[in-house]
């Protein structure tokens, strides 16, 4: 990123005369957004103050919110979600970053192959993935992972079946299977760095680590911010894995907010409460995102 330009940019850049263009450019996005995102969100907001029934809801003020804040399970699921997020998002970012860097020096054909290889899991449907992972986590000694740890002399574990290991199992699954997207995005960003930067650095005698520190890291900041924010959002809404692998158990050790909201909205038809929980969740995520923008966004934006 062109650091020196950042400061002057603000004053000099894009004359106000172009605002009309800007609105034209975002017009479609905004229309689609208003219809298919904003409208449902506003509906959900209104529903959160109601005892929702398809044939006629009653307004109950803040009861749904009060109920949620009093609910132990809600807080437990928030704690679980935070634990999951803290354990997965930064690690996954690091893994993706390292892999992207490692792919870089390879010859083109190898690069292509590895990119495809790391993106491939996305083509397997969620059901296939869960079947395979259930097999990997088979609790009996012939399970794949149990055989692997048995190799190191560790006794076989009941991976998904006990409170101690079930969360870790979901985290491990995330570490090993969910970074195709981030790797590709990181690679795209890495390839966008102009060679002249490295050449200049080499003239100054910079070594590999110095180049990483002073060129690559600053340049990848916008990308990292993007992956971090979307990663946290995705992680806070995570639902599929817990739903397919553990159903939230054992003893709610893997009940995430996403799963809880799903259960409330559909299993128990407490749509009002589900809406209230969603909005509380949104406030939490938004706060975290804001912190990330403040911490990461300074010299990236405008």
């Amino acid at each position, binding site marked *: 990123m062109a650091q020196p330009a950042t400061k002057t940019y603000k004053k000099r850049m894009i004359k106000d005369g172009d605002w009309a263009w800007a609105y034209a450019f975002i*017009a*479609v996005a905004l229309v689609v957004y208003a219809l298919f995102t904003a409208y449902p969100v506003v509906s959900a907001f209104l529903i959160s103050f109601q005892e929702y029934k*398809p044939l006629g809801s009653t307004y109950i003020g803040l009861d749904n919110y009060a109920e949620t804040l009093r609910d132990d399970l809600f807080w437990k699921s928030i704690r679980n979600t935070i634990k999951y997020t803290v354990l997965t998002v930064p690690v996954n970012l690091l893994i993706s970053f390292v892999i992207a860097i490692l792919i870089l020096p390879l010859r083109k054909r190898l690069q292509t192959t590895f990119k495809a290889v790391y993106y491939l899991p996305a083509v397997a449907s969620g059901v296939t993935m869960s079947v395979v992972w259930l097999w990997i986590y088979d609790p009996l000694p012939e399970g794949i992972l149990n055989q692997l740890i048995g190799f190191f002399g560790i006794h076989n574990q009941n991976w998904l*079946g006990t409170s101690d290991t079930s969360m870790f199992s979901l985290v491990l699954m995330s570490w090993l299977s969910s970074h195709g997207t981030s790797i590709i995005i990181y690679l795209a960003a890495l390839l966008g760095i102009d060679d002249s930067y490295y050449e200049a650095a080499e003239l100054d005698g910079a070594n590999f680590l110095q180049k990483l520190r002073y060129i690559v890291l600053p340049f990848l900041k916008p990308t990292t911010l993007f992956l971090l924010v979307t990663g946290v959002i995705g992680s806070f809404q995570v639902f599929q894995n817990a739903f397919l692998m553990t159903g939230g*158990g054992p003893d709610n050790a893997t009940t995430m907010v996403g799963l809880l909201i799903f259960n409330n909205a559909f299993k128990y038809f407490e749509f009002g409460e589900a809406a209230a929980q969603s909005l509380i969740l949104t406030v939490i995520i938004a706060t975290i995102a804001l912190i990330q923008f403040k911490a990461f966004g300074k010299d990236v934006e405008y």
Partner: protein
Amino acid sequence: MKSRKKVLTSILATTLSLSVLAACGNNNNNNASPSASDSPSSGSPAASSAAPEAAKDTITALLPPISPKYQESIAQIEKDFNALYPNLTLKIEPAGWEDMTQKLDTQVNAGSPPDIAFIGSSSIPKYLEQGMLMDITDSVTPEMIADYNPAVTLDYMKSGAGLYGFPAYMVVHSIGGNKQYLEEAGVDWKKVQQEGWTYEQFREAIKSGAAGGKHYGFVFATAGVAARDYLTILAKNAGMADPFTKDLKFAYTSKNYLEVLKAVRQMIDDGSMPKELSSVDAGKRWNMFLTGQTMITGKGLATFENSAKANNAKLEANDGSAVKDSIKVDYIVLPVPTFAGAQPVSTTVIDGYVTFRGKKEPTAEHKANVAKAAYYLASGKVAAVTNNDLFASHITESAKAAAASLTIERSAENLAAVERMLTFATPPRPDIPAELSAKAIKLEDEVIIPKMQALLANEITPEKMYDEVMKAAVKEFGADGVVQD
């Protein structure tokens, strides 16, 4: 000026391309649009000017692939129905087996469910609570009711005074054993099939089944929400046929419940069941059965006999297509043992065609049409074919008659054992108010299942779990609303 004009053209261009996109989407759908505008359950008030007999109506039905053959014959079913009632159109919407509930729940939340959906009778209270079920008591004809044999099966679709659909079949969920292993362990399985057994006898049997250490005595799928199946199957045979007693008190606080919980732990601690039981899922337990890793498995369905036979045939063919490491097994249907001298009660699942309403009050005419369609699906030829596929018991005379020509190969002993279990099937409980049922379901999901998972994983004691259930039940139903013995 100039730049503004260009802005305008660019907006125009974008909207244009948008509408092209939209248009290309529409093209391919000419055939489906008329039915889409005919929103479900609204009936067709416009047609009321015509003679009542001939009024056209469309009935929508959300159906999962109940059996492989069922899915193939959807078009035929629609056509036959139309031939039977020329003024009526039956529109079947297919959806995946596990995903159907999600779709139905969204539609119910949106206030526009289909007219008919294929679901279990146990879900009736949930949808009734939302006010979205349609009572067809007034619309069914005496012939339809008379077709049900035993007549009591129709009661599973009732709640209070209302009838909310027609049941299609009844299946018993039980346990099943490996014939050879049972005999090696000295279990007289014929006698058990004919007379049942107590928990004490069962415990000994699985202990000797596991004695050699080569395989387990008993494995039940309990991973995730299947923990509920395991617990209720046992609880039914400990005097708690339903979550509520006859006088509508919550039953799972009785002393017998604690006995069941203790038994759950005992069987694992004996070494008769794997200590990793808490993460054995449905696929795993059947794999363990076929590969000879367990003597008895659960829950057992009638179709398992067929599954085992199919695998035996593959083993014989020796072409590598059989389940890896599997052995030849003969599947023996067994009843669930009884606890503390209680009467046996077999777990029965009644699935059927449940009738829904939309936001508008349905007309009497539309109701009658929906009832006709639901009955058509639940009886006669349609039911005969699916029930045979599933090894499920016919519950209508017309289905039995239609099935007479279809032969199925089943072991006589197993058939007799199933017939016997059907004689003490869980009775229908239309007297339990939907609201109470809904509360019990939530209590099960939020307290009982999580604690049961913990119990299976040896993280809490049976006593601790019992206390937790008691505490939650008293909180939900009051001290007077629960059984205290």
